[in-house]
């Protein structure tokens, strides 16, 4: 018995070196590239499809299906389309497909419509030229287009998938389990939540630009942490995107497993509800202590980010003084400094604000969203306790946590934020702009500053780079001086690979297998 099984598995592990067996916790939700804007789904879709503009492994932008682009007028971007590109079915990729795909991604129920809501019209000038008309000047359109996959118009019409998959429609569409793109990999088979197999597209336009050494990708979602680690240890996997943090040291001890570590595009911070009116999440009657900037500063001074990094994160985080990762455009390097950890100063500030005896407040915290999220909150609670602010911890699953933030039913909360456009405007738009239904959807702090709002709206349409950078700098100035959020750290990502397999690390946590390679 054991002999039979043993030989069977030996066969499996001696599989062709060109196959990459890859697992992470979740599966792509759908193959429809415009339906859901979510990490694993986008990763999968960018293997099957190409965007006009690609984001390289170092997060700079480079030509994808467009070879060049420039703003020819204030509100018109011209994109030159790469020639000789074919879809997986052999049909030619044309400017018509670009117009079709952008329209599809820009309308309901596409989840990407907010990315490209500035697009008014896509004009096909000739076979290789497209003019994108925007409602106002849009300086970051190329960055926004890195997330928009190009589909085949003919294929979509033939299969009746001219709009994105919709929750309320009552039926699934053809694009959920089938795909037709120009990407480096073709779909071989797809069983949702079970296994997805991709094979190399040997006609890929980038065959000479990228290593393209991986011939076949077998993707398996494995939701249980310990099973994912066991499968890597037993040699059944080559790459695990999200090895559990508590197992990293053990994995590193294994001789044939490498852990690649780098800064992720995600900061972790605390939000403070600073609306003037009395908050029901503290024990102070009649007023909201956090409306007083001195209280916010006191809380900031009381939090020791280095200790959190050392003890809670076991060194695997980067303490930060802004809520933006350092590689985004407009990152305020000179402002990225934490208020010193100083309990004396904190107590003084509290006393000045009239809270020498401290107060009680509830901290809302997720326990299954960010790395060690609940432990971070416990540490914060302990630290604030040192300056007599008693923290009542309310940690719950992400769906309840984000519901509370969405309903603005929090006084003090933990949040993490990534910046997919790699531009400061994204941070201001969602986290600092006044919450008005359109902008500020994640600004649960109640922070509202007219100058900030003005700047955010202007930087969305300012094409002159220098002027725009000045606006961003001014906005950061306001943001940092008001202490709206207390930054904690930049999350660090860890990718585990088997010895001999190289998957270049990307800060967006979206591996690109066209750039992966094998040692001989």
């Amino acid at each position, binding site marked *: 018995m054991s002999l039979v099984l043993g030989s069977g598995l030996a066969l499996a592990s001696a599989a062709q070196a060109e196959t990459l067996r890859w697992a992470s916790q979740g599966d792509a939700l759908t193959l429809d590239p415009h339906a859901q804007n979510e990490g694993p789904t986008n990763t999968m879709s960018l293997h099957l499809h190409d965007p006009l503009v690609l984001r390289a492994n170092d997060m700079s932008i480079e030509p994808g299906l467009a070879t060049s682009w420039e703003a020819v007028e204030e509100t018109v971007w011209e994109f030159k389309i790469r020639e000789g590109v074919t879809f997986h079915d052999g049909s030619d990729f044309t400017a018509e497909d670009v117009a079709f795909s952008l329209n599809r991604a820009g309308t309901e129920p596409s989840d990407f419509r907010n990315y490209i809501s500035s697009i008014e019209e896509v004009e096909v000038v000739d076979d290789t030229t497209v003019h994108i008309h925007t409602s106002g000047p849009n300086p970051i359109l190329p960055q926004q287009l890195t997330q928009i996959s190009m589909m085949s118009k003919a294929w979509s019409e033939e299969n009746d998938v001219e709009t994105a998959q919709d929750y309320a429609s009552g039926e699934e569409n053809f694009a959920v389990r089938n795909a037709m793109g120009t990407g480096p990999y073709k779909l071989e088979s797809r069983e949702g*939540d079970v296994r997805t197999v991709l094979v190399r597209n040997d006609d890929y336009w980038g065959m000479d630009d990228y290593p393209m050494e991986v011939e076949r990708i077998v993707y398996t979602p494995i939701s*249980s942490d310990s099973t994912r680690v066991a499968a890597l240890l037993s040699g059944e996997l080559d790459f695990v995107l999200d090895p559990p943090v508590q197992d990293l040291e053990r994995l590193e001890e294994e001789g044939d497993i490498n852990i690649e570590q780098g800064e992720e595009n995600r900061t972790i911070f605390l939000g403070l509800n600073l609306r003037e009116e009395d908050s029901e999440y503290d024990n102070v009657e009649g007023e909201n202590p956090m409306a007083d900037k001195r209280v916010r500063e006191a809380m900031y001074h009381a939090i020791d980010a280095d200790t959190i990094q050392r003890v809670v994160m076991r060194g695997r985080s980067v303490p930060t003084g802004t809520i933006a990762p350092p590689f985004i455009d407009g990152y305020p390097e000179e402002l990225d400094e934490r208020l010193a950890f100083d309990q004396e100063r904190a107590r003084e500030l509290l006393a000045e604000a009239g809270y020498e005896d401290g107060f009680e407040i509830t901290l809302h915290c997720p326990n*299954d969203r960010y790395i060690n999220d609940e432990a971070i909150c416990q540490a914060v609670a302990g630290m604030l306790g040192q300056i007599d602010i008693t923290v009542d911890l309310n940690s719950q699953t992400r*769906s309840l946590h984000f*519901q509370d933030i969405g309903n603005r039913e929090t006084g003090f909360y933990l949040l993490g934020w990534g910046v997919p456009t790699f531009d400061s405007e994204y941070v201001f738009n969602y986290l600092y702009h006044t919450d008005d*239904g*359109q902008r500020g959807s994640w600004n649960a702090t109640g922070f509202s500053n007219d100058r900030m709002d003005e700047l955010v709206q202007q930087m969305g349409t300012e094409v002159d780079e220098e002027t725009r950078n000045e606006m961003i700098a001014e906005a950061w100035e306001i943001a940092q001086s008001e202490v709206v959020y207390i930054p904690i750290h930049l999350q660090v990502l860890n990718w585990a690979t088997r010895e001999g397999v190289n998957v270049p690390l990307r800060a967006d946590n979206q591996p690109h297998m066209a750039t992966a390679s094998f040692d001989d």
Partner: protein
Amino acid sequence: MLAFIVRRLLQSIVVMLVVALIAFSLFNFVGDPINNMVGQEATTEQRAELRERLGLNDPIPVQFLRFVGNAAQGEFGISYRTARPVADLIAERLPATIELAVTSAAFALSLGIVLGVYSALNRYGWTSRFVMTASLIGVSLPTFLIGILLIWIFAVNLQWLPSYGRGEVVDLGGWRTGFLTLSGLQALILPAVTLGLYQLTLIMRLVRAEMLEVLRTDYIKFARARGLSNRAVNFGHALKNTLVPVITITGLQLGSIIAFAIITETVFQWPGVGLLFIIAIRFVDIPVMAAYLILIALFFVIINLIVDLLYYIVDPRLRVETPAARTAA
């Protein structure tokens, strides 16, 4: 007879409605699915609009009635996570769960009976003492620990068996089976053992106790006195009489194997309905969660209904209308 069946069916329907109501009202406490459904870029207005479109703003009784009305037609709506019909998702996943449950039941039943008989016939031998002690460990260890232990031994260290998944499957007109491929069979072993271990212990102990009981009875003594061989006495007479309660228990346990496959499926990434349910919980995929709970309740109700009807047929005393009979039903 007819009145009994009708009454029993009505009771089943009431039970199903109560389960549906409890399941449905639980979902008010699992949070808002909207954030898992749209990207972080969605505006507050777009979120509100989607909530309205999905009917999440309706009062709970309205949502519940709509749910029951649809469910009665086998229509469970669209999964919030994948935007695919829930009925399709469940139909795709059910074969995996059923194959796992049947295999582990077969494993538990065959080995359970053999070990039970063995330990009853050799009750003072050291092997049967060892088996009895080992079975206590099997009962007291939680399933996920057994699963991880087996993975650790057979997948990581010995590398004999795969640690996750279902291996290659063959599609037989809508039923994907892993029974027909080598990798499918290999992948089945660890999860089936994990899931079946508890039932195995249960059956083994039951068989042993019943067997010891039967071996003490007069007709066994008479059989031995008639000079029948040990083999004929033990297997022809004793075992046959032991099996009646075993069959009843096994039937009832099959339902719970399917229901409790959740943990085993999660540990082994077995693509069945249990794993579907666990992932649905994480995403607050309410339609999938509701459909799963209804499905499992339906399994139990049907099994119990069949068992009751069989008792009614087998035991004539139940057919007499007495208050006792009514409570028994």
